[in-house]
């Protein structure tokens, strides 16, 4: 570089005020402390942020949803070949086509969706078939204790006990907010159990197996709780 001049900071001898350092430390301290208060503050602002995200559509996570997958790509739903197999310890094993599921009695519910990583979507409109009704159709054998849900997305699976599955708002969801489930949300059918964290709700459901002992699910094999009650599991205490 011709000239070779270089910046030399001016140094004043007395009364140097370090506003720069103060700003840096304030930002850093505020940021670090926000680990303690960010979730509560977000809760206060969530009516605003969720309406903003609805306005801006796909620019922001819509209504607060974040999509998690465990494999390379999301399974593709083909209505012609897709079947929901229900078998295991049942008197009448069955295989449902998508149209057969649509023809079953439809239940609607509005419930909150809690993810174990800390985000929540309030007032989600689900529609679908009560899992308890589906269970009645296949007539579980007396020794059946739990249902293992297997996803098209291998090797994702999880399970619920029959008692958990018969909770009144446990649903095999086919619709989300008035529209058929989209691919990211687990088309065509996913499990919804609002009392538990989202990983219990298997997406892209392909098979239900009734078993006599509750097996370990995908995330449970990685250290997450089998009974994933919201606010009472996975290190959370009282919501």
């Amino acid at each position, binding site marked *: 570089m011709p000239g070779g*001049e*270089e910046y030399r900071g001016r*140094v004043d001898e007395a009364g140097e005020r370090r*506003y720069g350092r103060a700003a*840096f430390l304030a*930002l850093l301290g505020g940021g670090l402390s926000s680990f303690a208060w960010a979730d509560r503050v977000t809760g206060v602002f969530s009516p605003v942020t969720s309406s903003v995200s609805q306005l801006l559509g796909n620019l922001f996570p819509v209504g607060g*949803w974040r999509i998690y997958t465990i494999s390379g790509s999301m399974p593709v739903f083909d209505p012609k070949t897709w079947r929901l197999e229900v078998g295991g310890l049942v008197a009448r094993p069955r295989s449902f086509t998508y149209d057969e599921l649509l023809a079953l009695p439809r239940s609607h519910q509005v419930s909150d969706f809690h993810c174990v990583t800390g985000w929540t979507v309030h007032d989600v409109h689900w529609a679908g078939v009560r899992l308890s009704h589906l269970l009645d159709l296949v007539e579980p054998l007396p020794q059946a204790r739990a249902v293992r849900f297997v996803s098209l997305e291998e090797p994702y699976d999880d399970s619920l006990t029959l008692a958990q599955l018969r909770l009144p708002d446990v649903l095999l969801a086919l619709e989300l907010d008035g529209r058929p489930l989209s691919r990211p949300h687990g088309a065509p059918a996913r499990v919804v159990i609002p009392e538990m964290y989202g990983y219990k709700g298997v997406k892209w459901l392909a098979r239900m197996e009734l078993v006599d002992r509750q097996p370990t699910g995908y995330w449970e094999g990685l250290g997450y709780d089998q009974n994933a009650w919201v606010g009472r599991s996975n290190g959370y205490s009282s919501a």
Partner: protein
Amino acid sequence: MAIRPPERSRRVLRWNRTERALHWVHAGAFCVLLGSGLCLYLPSLAEAVSRRPLLKDIHLYTAAAWAGALVLVVALGDRRSLRRTVRELDRLDPDGRMNRGQQLNTIATAAFAILFAVSGFLLWYGERDTRFRFASTLLVHDWLMYASLVLFLGHLYYALVLPSTRHSLSGMTRGWVREDWAERRHPRWVAALRSGDRPT
């Protein structure tokens, strides 16, 4: 009529090699992290780009490479000049190379970098040890992204678009700026250069 060729304008060194390396390491990593992060985060992009494990790997390895490269630049570079820059920022020096806004932008970027690293590490480690999973970690990482995006877009506007300021890009690519530009944009800096003050 002969047209006299314009005089080659005089140049002033604004950013030396170490400072430029630090800037571009951070800028490059930021762009890759922002791109891969948004593909994981935004529903429309997440659906279009379905190779999530690959994107997650890109995000994680870029973060690690970013931290490693910063340490290398500081370890191998001209630390005296970096200390000088830190001193300018510390005092919000009105005779410095940067104006007040640029100084504050640099300070915020540095603070955000640390917060990104802490929250990102917790997101990564929380998948391995559930005791380190906190409800706020994801939110902190999200908010930092939005705040940084605003700073980043403003920075790009001044460095690439606004005619009166975009010559500053030369300082960060080639190291020097035209003296007449520096006199217009940063008169106190040029005056301080001429008065020949030296740091103690």
